């Protein structure tokens, strides 16, 4: 059965969706690419856990094992979560281990620079390098895991090969000890500056719980960190509670330089003349009264929809038959009044038309009478010719029409003839009428 009530002129919901998809797919594709690239970059970037390099953490990224070993060997380890605290604890004869330097602010670095004692910088950022290891600069990272010392630093030569994993490399000023080079750039730098020994280590993996046992990692870690009897391990907290004067306490406007604030003020003010420039029309909008024009066939279309909505097959069939008769009868050379005659009023005229049409087409009289007048076999108002017994049910050349004639699906109801039993019947009737008209026209 037909369930859709849309005409061919109106696109179906599926067509509309398809059109929208086709017009939007370029944008969607670009967005998907952006998302995919973003996800790939995020996945490639090594993620850092908040507990990484934390001396209290037993996770693979933590350094509890190293600290415990150091403690067992009699090295005093003080863990500090605050740069100011670490600076005060550090002194001559201590080793200050600075980790997670991305959490240090510039004032923290100032405090650390003011401290005394040796320094071990683990994976320092550029700002930390500039503040605490002047002269050493960051080079490109390397992904070659293992490296040999190739230097004279006892801590390194005793440890031997080290499994660094991904590591930063550095360019060191001439005359400093540089170990574990990768294409000329060392992973480990040690030198004297400001009266203390500063060591820069480009990778954190040799110190962690998970990789302490790889190669000579443990030895290197012990040698570097435990070089002094007292160790201050600085791992700055990510979140400060913020006692007075801390950077986290300040608002965005405190941090912005005054020129930038004035710049934004200038932008806001500049919007006003631009808005006034674009907003001022060159005179009023001119209106025009447009005539109302309706499609002339609107009522016909409306009637067609009503027929369809109510499945008015009987009325539709009547209209089609009347139209076909009006065109066919003049072709037969019969007067127009005959075209309007109905079986109930003028059976003689009807019989004449049916016979003439049947003679000029390859359809038998039964099919023609059924098509043009909707007459079912044996209907009282029409007498079938004796040569063609209507009840014998021989299938007509027009399969469909013959079929429903056989099944007796034509109920003699409407004034213009029987009503097709379903939509397929109406379609078949329309095709049959077209065929009759064509054959009569060509005969």
């Amino acid at each position, binding site marked *: 059965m037909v369930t859709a009530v849309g005409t061919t002129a109106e696109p179906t919901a599926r067509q509309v969706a398809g059109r929208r998809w086709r017009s939007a797919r370029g944008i969607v594709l670009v967005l998907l690419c952006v998302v995919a690239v973003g996800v790939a970059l995020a996945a490639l970037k090594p993620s850092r856990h908040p507990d990484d390099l934390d001396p209290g953490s037993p996770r693979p990224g933590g350094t509890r094992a190293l600290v415990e070993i150091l403690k067992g060997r009699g090295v005093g380890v003080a863990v500090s979560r605050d740069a100011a605290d670490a600076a005060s604890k550090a002194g001559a004869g201590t080793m200050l281990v600075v980790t997670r330097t991305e959490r240090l602010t510039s004032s923290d670095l100032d405090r650390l620079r003011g401290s005394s004692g040796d320094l071990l910088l683990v994976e320092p950022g550029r700002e930390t390098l500039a503040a605490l290891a002047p002269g050493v600069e960051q080079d490109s990272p390397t992904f070659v895991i293992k490296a040999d010392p190739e230097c004279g630093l006892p801590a390194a030569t005793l440890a031997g090969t080290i499994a660094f994993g991904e590591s930063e490399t550095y360019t060191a000023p001439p005359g400093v000890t540089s170990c574990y080079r990768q294409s000329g750039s060392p992973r480990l730098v040690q030198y004297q500056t400001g009266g203390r020994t500063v060591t820069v280590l480009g990778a954190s993996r040799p110190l962690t719980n998970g990789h302490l046992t790889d190669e000579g990692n443990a030895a290197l870690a012990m040698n570097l960190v435990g070089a002094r009897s007292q160790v201050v391990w600085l791992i700055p907290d990510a979140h400060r509670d913020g006692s007075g004067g801390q950077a986290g306490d300040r608002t965005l406007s405190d941090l912005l330089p005054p020129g930038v604030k004035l710049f934004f003020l200038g932008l806001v003010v500049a919007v006003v003349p631009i808005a006034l420039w674009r907003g001022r029309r060159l005179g009023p909008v001119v209106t025009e009264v447009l005539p109302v024009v309706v499609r002339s066939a609107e009522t016909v279309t409306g009637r067609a929809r009503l027929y369809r909505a109510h499945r008015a097959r009987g009325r*539709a069939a009547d*209209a089609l038959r009347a139209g076909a008769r009006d065109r066919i009868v003049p072709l037969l050379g019969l007067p127009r009044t005959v075209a309007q005659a109905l079986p109930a009023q003028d059976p003689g005229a009807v019989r004449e038309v049916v016979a003439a049409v049947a003679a000029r087409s390859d359809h038998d009289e039964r099919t023609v009478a059924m098509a043009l007048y909707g007459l079912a076999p044996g209907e009282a108002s029409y007498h079938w010719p004796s040569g063609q017994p209507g009840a014998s049910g021989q299938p007509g050349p027009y399969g469909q029409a013959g079929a429903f004639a056989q099944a007796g699906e034509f109920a003699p109801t409407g004034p213009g003839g029987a009503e097709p039993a379903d939509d397929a019947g109406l379609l078949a009737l329309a095709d049959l009428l077209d065929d009759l008209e064509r054959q009569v026209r060509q005969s």
Partner: protein
Amino acid sequence: MALTGRLGLLALVVAFVPLLVPSGAVLLGLWGLLLLGVVIDLCLAGNVRKLRFHREGDTRVRLGETAKAALIVENTGGRRVKAILRDAWQPSAGVSPRRTRINIPAGERRRIDQTFTPTRRGDRKAVTVVVRSVGPLGLAARQLSRSAPRTLRVLPAFPSRRHLPSRLARLRELTGLQATMIRGQGTEFDSLREYVVGDDVRSIDWRATARRGDVVVRTWRPERDRRLYLVLDTGRTSAGRLGDIPRLDCSMDAALLLAALASRAGDRVDLLAYDRTVRARCENASRTGLLSEMVEAMAPLEPALVESDAAGMVSAVMSRVRRRSLIVLLTELNPAAFEEGLLPLLPGLTARHLVLIAAVSDPAVDEMAAARGDIAAVYDAAAAERARADRRRLTAELRSFGVEVVDAPPDRIAPALADAYLALKAAGRL
């Protein structure tokens, strides 16, 4: 007053200055300079009030053609006027250019050439002239709307003109002005001449034949000086759109062809446009001025969304037309409207006049009637067949009243109406 893009750009540039010189005083000073520039511009901009506008050029144009006109701007003020000018017409006037830059020294005048390509029939009006006079710094402008009224009348297109020569040739055959075998047909006795093979034997004048001893036929010529009264229905049915043009425009086209033909045939043509009241009239026009007068009368007509008042229309016609005339009613064969309106009044009209009803049919209905394929198309076809059957029934009923009916699609209605007129003339029924 209006600001310019230059001011906006400068304000934007000024916004970047604090990045180089982070000082509030400098920023304030620059803003003050810009403000000063705006004030100077407003004071020194040319005076728009002292402009005078004159118009010249075409006031009439056929729909689909292009008219040329000019706007002349005269600066009677003491300062040069440098401005953007917008001549605001109704959109369907199709004016070009819409905006012009003018630069007129004090006391001089400049001419702005314009072309009009209207997209709709009727009267198109110039609404206003807007002048934005920019100051010497180009930061601000004085803007004013001035009125410079003008109306461009857009006449019907009359595309069926191309059918006129062939119909005129047929007319000449009828009147016998052209050398043909048949000298002419009609009811007005013209002359006697010898019978030649091919003449209608009914036209043999036996009395003259007996006198002359030779077969003599009477010749006839069509009547002249008959009256045609064209009635345009501008009611709701004329608003229907057939393809892209309203039914009213198709009817006008047909009326114009018929009027052109009839005036050449020596008949008098009058026009009345009616829905519930008289919308336009063109009566007693001279033979040479008929077409232009009719076109003028038709130009501003628009379909009215009301049911036409058939009784009023008939009485208007009856009161205006005393002599027997051919009344051509250009309307739509709408069974409902006819049964309630015109049909009961037709006998009174046909008793005194010959009535011809010309209706434009919708080709979309014929397309729908031929539609096949799916069930929706067949229902469409059934509805279209029903509409055509209604139309045929109404046509038959009208013919039973002795009314001539011409029913044709838009592209054929004008020649069909002309042919119907020629046929009536040939049959001597006028």
